[in-house]
């Protein structure tokens, strides 16, 4: 499992891909990557779940806390690439009401 970080320079958006799982054992790695980018001045974020197997409640929790922090600083964190299973987790927990969820990372970047 790992996280890939790339920057769309045109739209000034940081895109973080979750390759594998976003769970209790690695959520702090994602948090650190986003907080480092925030410190460096980035404000627009997309988390891309196209290559993600599963997410647990700790993973959902870290997305909620990061989104709050980013919004406090005038930015936004959007989600993309959720398959039906992953989308169900957001719907069950009603977190789909807290996030902008797009079909693909490209769409999410373009929508900023």
């Amino acid at each position, binding site marked *: 499992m790992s996280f890939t970080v790339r920057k769309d320079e045109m739209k000034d958006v940081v895109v973080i891909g979750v390759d594998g799982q976003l*769970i*209790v*054992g690695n959520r702090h790695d994602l948090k650190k990557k986003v907080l480092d980018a925030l410190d460096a001045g980035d404000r627009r974020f997309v988390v891309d779940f196209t290559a993600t*197997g599963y997410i647990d*409640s*700790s993973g959902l*929790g870290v997305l909620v806390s990061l989104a709050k922090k980013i919004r406090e600083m005038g930015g936004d964190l959007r989600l993309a690439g959720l398959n039906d299973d992953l989308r169900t987790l957001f719907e*069950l927990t009603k977190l789909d009401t807290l996030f902008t969820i797009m079909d693909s990372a490209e769409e999410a970047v373009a929508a900023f």
Partner: protein
Amino acid sequence: MTAPLRLVVRRRETAVLEGSGRTVEILLRVPTDLDAVEEAVDLVARHCLASGVPPRAARFVMRVVLCEALANAIQYGNRFDTSKRVDVRVEVAAEAVTLHVRDEGAGFDPTTIPDPTASNRIDADKGRGLFLIRKLADEVRFNDRGNAICMILNRA
């Protein structure tokens, strides 16, 4: 560094009135270490797949509920006490997959866990684990002490 996990797989023939079925039992002892959760879930999921559990169930629902139960056992049950362990027992039968997760903690009252979808909790950064287990599993039971959870996933 985390010691390698020890997995014991037992195959048990179970005779029932209308014929005979095979139950596969998977036993795993997990250290009190959040870094061990992913490996434990992967090991169990792979053995479930090999035992005939449909790929989608083994890939997603089973992984999520087992991950949640292990994380709860380590954090809130054993309270990160590395002298304690978490025991996982999975029974793969024709009609259902039953996952038992037991920690060595004092136990808790599952009826006291608040609804994480309530408007005043929706943006909390924790408190969704048991809720997800209850939503995804077909049946959830606890022992009286509250330190063991049983999650049943029907195969029908």
